[in-house]
């Protein structure tokens, strides 16, 4: 018995001595919980810090800080992501709006097409922010993957991306029909939602990318449900509404009808300046916000040729005006227009910083 106790004691002392030596050796070493097994190159990657609030809705308010900081962050992503190793730090982010997520998603997937460097994501401490980030598979994009952005029936927040090819617009309407209306969508509702989604996507492919091949005409779409409201936004990184609306045949008539004083001044300038084309003068004499507003008006003359088009915005307006507290936001270049129904005048806002592309968002209440 004494021999056994002695052997045990010896083992115990040997282990204690080893433990003490190990502790002494580790005394001044700092360990990072999550990063301990990452390559040194990623740990020292280019840091891009996300702001506290990633949101663009404040563009129309007195405090436009969130909007400017969000665009600044997205600009850094466009410039650096995938071109160099990056650390994208969401640790301070406590809020993320659906529309801003869409622009961020587009920036990252586009940047990914132009580079192969991996990045790491430092996640937020807020679960709601991380859920939004995971909805567009940010982790996989950071790891140099290009995940498919199809309708995912398991997710509450849907981010879908597509081009003119395929029937993803139909899948989106199917999703709305099954998830929110539980297959009890009336034919009229189905038509209205289908027109709102499909015609808006068709507008992207028709107008947003005039010089691109059809397979490069990409759009991104997000659907989020909060209580009994659907928030849906469609985004493209095309030339913007201000660049294309002036070319529409109905534009001058609508301009004359909605802004008669400015139209008279414009016509005086046309007479004075014999060199520039009317369309060039239109673009330079009307603000982007005015051009976005006029695009939402569409044709006001009722002429046949021009009446063929502009159906997407009509369908969305019909949906929004039937919803209490419904909103339609249209961001494009340096203009923002907010529609809340035919009873109230549209808000026409000059953006403090240029919005990249066009984003159309609307919310609809359903029973």
């Amino acid at each position: 018995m004494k021999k056994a106790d002695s052997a045990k004691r010896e083992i115990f002392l040997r282990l204690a001595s080893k433990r003490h030596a190990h502790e002494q050796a580790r005394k001044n070493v700092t360990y990072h919980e999550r990063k301990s097994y990452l390559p040194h190159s990623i740990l020292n990657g280019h840091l891009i810090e996300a702001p506290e609030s990633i949101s663009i809705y404040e563009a129309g308010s007195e405090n436009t800080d969130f909007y400017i900081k969000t665009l600044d962050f997205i600009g850094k992503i466009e410039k650096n992501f995938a071109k160099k190793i990056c650390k994208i730090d969401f640790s301070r982010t406590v809020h993320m709006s659906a529309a801003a997520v869409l622009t961020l998603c587009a920036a990252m997937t586009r940047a990914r097409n132009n580079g192969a460097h991996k990045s790491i994501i430092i996640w937020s401490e807020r679960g709601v922010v991380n859920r939004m980030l995971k909805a567009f598979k940010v982790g996989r994009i950071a790891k140099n993957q290009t995940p498919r952005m199809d309708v995912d029936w398991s997710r509450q927040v849907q981010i879908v991306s597509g081009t003119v090819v395929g029937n993803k617009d139909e899948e989106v309407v199917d999703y709305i029909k099954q998830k929110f209306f539980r297959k009890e969508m009336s034919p009229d509702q189905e038509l209205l939602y289908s027109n709102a989604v499909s015609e808006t996507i068709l507008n992207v492919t028709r107008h947003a990318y005039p010089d691109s091949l059809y397979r490069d005409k990409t759009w991104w779409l997000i659907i989020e449900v909060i209580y009994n409201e659907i928030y849906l936004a469609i985004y493209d990184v095309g030339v913007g509404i201000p660049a294309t609306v002036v070319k529409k045949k109905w534009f001058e008539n609508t301009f004359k009808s909605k802004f008669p004083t400015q139209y008279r001044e414009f016509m005086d300038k046309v007479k004075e300046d014999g060199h520039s084309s009317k369309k060039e003068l239109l673009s330079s004499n009307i603000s982007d916000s005015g051009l976005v507003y006029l695009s939402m008006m569409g044709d006001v003359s009722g002429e046949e040729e021009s009446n063929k088009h502009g159906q997407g915005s009509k369908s969305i307006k019909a949906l929004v005006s039937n919803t209490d507290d419904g909103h339609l936001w249209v961001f494009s270049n340096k203009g923002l227009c907010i529609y809340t129904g035919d009873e109230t005048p549209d808000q026409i806002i000059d953006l403090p910083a240029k919005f990249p592309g066009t984003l159309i968002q609307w919310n609809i209440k359903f029973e």
Partner: protein
Amino acid sequence: MKSLEITVVKDFNPHPKGRDEKDVPPDGKGTGKHFRESCLEPAMKKHEQVHVTLDGYNRYGPSFLDEAFAGLIHSSGIPPKEVFNKLTYSHSTLKSIEDVIKSRINSAATVYLQKNIENNQE
């Protein structure tokens, strides 16, 4: 032959959409223009009466409807009188689609007649 009935989703495409090949590249398959050129125009030439049934699909876009039906006048140049006399259409659960088609055809007819008047004056 006297009359013909065309059911869009069975005789043409189960998911018709878009105006032309710009909306559905590269060949515009399933668009309004494709429907008009491959189904409706030949039917109008061969038959005295053509009825288009739109049942079975609730997502007809205005672009498709305009190019398919009003396009008979504004793109194919068929006189409005012929279109009004020969063509009928229906959707049993979506009367609003019938209204859209009617409105687009009427608008196309108005422009056609105005252009004819202007040409005659010249």
